């Protein structure tokens, strides 16, 4: 029974099992999700750009932004991207779960530093009359920067979940894919932060 195996026009039914590249598929899907997220950020950036002068008589960038604090946040986040890279390397080169967990923990600490200073910044802005309900400018600022902060927070939660999984069950295929996807997410958030500190903070202080 040679069946449908000759050079048949149209299609043929060999038995060869068509193996789907699951890792490639999952990672590509996550890239696509990140690109839709990029559009969301991009539009809120554009909204900010059109509302940066809408201070309605209230405080503006020069009154509210603290370049020192931003510098600390930037350093923490950039370094955390690097330490996550080390976690990725530990994973790729089979250094064992403790190495991965350790670098992720360092990343987490740096992320907390970032978030701590950022929340402190926001509270200081509130104290100086820069709360979101003050003007279009403050609304646009608080629409953009806390959105990034919420993303970082979600990334931290995800990181904790992955660490717990590795502690309990070691590294399996699903955890590996999780760490790889979170890596993309984390680096993406650092790129968004480049745009934030450049356009919002530095740009506002020019």
């Amino acid at each position, binding site marked *: 029974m040679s069946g449908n195996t000759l050079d048949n026009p149209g299609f043929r039914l060999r038995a060869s099992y068509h193996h789907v590249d699951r890792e490639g598929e999952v990672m590509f899907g996550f890239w696509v999700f990140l690109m839709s997220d990029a559009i969301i950020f991009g539009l809120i950036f554009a909204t900010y750009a059109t509302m940066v002068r809408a201070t309605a008589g209230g405080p503006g960038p020069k009154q509210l932004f603290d370049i020192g604090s931003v*510098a600390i946040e930037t350093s923490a986040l*950039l370094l955390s991207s690097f330490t996550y890279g080390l976690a990725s390397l530990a994973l790729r*080169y089979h250094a*064992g779960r403790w190495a991965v967990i350790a670098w992720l923990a360092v990343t987490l600490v740096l992320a907390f530093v970032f978030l701590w200073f950022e929340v402190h910044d926001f509270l200081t802005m509130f104290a100086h009359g820069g709360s979101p309900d003050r003007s279009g400018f403050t609304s646009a600022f608080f629409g953009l920067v806390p959105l990034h902060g919420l993303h970082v927070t979600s990334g931290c939660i995800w990181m904790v979940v992955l660490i717990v999984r590795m502690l309990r069950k070691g590294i399996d295929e699903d955890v590996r894919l999780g760490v790889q996807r979170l890596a993309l997410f984390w*680096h993406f958030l650092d790129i968004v932060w480049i*745009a934030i500190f450049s*356009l919002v903070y530095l*740009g506002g202080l020019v």
Partner: protein
Amino acid sequence: MNDAHDLGGHPPWGHPHFGGGSSGDAYRKDLHTYLWGLLLAVALTVVPFAAVYWHAMTASSLWITIGVFALVQAVVHFRCFLHVHPPHENVDEMLLVLFTVIILIMMAGGTVWILGNLHSRMY
């Protein structure tokens, strides 16, 4: 499928095991990529921060500096941390990113153009 290497007895900061020389080389190459990424990113961050802090140039020059350095740093992140660069087997990913950039330019650029135009006609 558990990863067999569980270095339970080692301190968490111990050096990872490698196979033969070839995977050791690959590891070093990868590590250098990340290190270069970090170094370049730090440099590309410090310069615009310093320029703004010390009002080193005119406003429009500052804007250009900030913009250019931000773009270059983004590319550094893409290349060194995200491993997206030509020529590479992740052609699909790179095309996706480029397409997104085009859409972003149209959407964000269009928004700024339209609202700027409306603003200029308001007064």
